[in-house]
């Protein structure tokens, strides 16, 4: 049972992505295989150098850096969205890889969850 958790909203504008991340961490805590997909505007979660303290929020970049520690094995970025938001591949976190979002991509997962 391999679950794909999708984050497709921008960081800091609302709590939706954070609550999706919590789902991923919970699956990992129970040793369930989980992959995170950053789709559409969600790729902005992967941008380096976020300074959220001025918004009095915690940095989602820091939350995300805990993903592999918590056992979320793979971070995947929507390749088309990276181009759309001008985020160069070499700026992505080490754990992240790019992919084209085809039907075959989604079919690798038993379950796909996007809030």
């Amino acid at each position, binding site marked *: 049972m391999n679950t794909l958790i999708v984050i*497709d909203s921008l960081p800091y504008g609302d709590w939706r992505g954070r609550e999706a991340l919590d789902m991923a961490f919970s699956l990992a805590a129970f040793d369930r295989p989980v992959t995170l997909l950053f*789709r*559409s*505007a969600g790729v902005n979660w992967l941008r380096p150098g976020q300074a959220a303290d001025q918004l009095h929020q915690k940095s989602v970049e820091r939350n995300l850096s805990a993903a592999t520690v918590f056992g979320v094995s793979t971070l995947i970025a929507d390749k088309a969205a990276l181009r759309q938001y001008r985020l160069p591949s070499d700026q992505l976190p080490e754990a992240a890889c790019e992919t084209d*979002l*085809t*039907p*075959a991509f*989604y*079919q690798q997962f*038993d*379950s*796909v*969850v*996007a809030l």
Partner: protein
Amino acid sequence: MLTLHIINKAPDHPRFSACLEALAENDALVLIENAVTALVFDKLPLPPCYALHPDVNARALSQSSMPGVKMIDYPGLVALTETHQRIVNW
């Protein structure tokens, strides 16, 4: 595995196109809530799909049905979840 895709977002929402891109051959697509306006949205490449009748009726779109779109009610939606083991909500 045959997948049932259920979408509730309006056709101009970014998730609508993401959903269409994820459809595999023989997957089923159901339009519910705001997504039923895809029945009239211009220039949308809407594949054969189902539309939830109570949502279609509320939005006065029952006259707008297209070939390839089947109307279902809630029991029909339940039936689709019986025959599809994998369900993705958009």
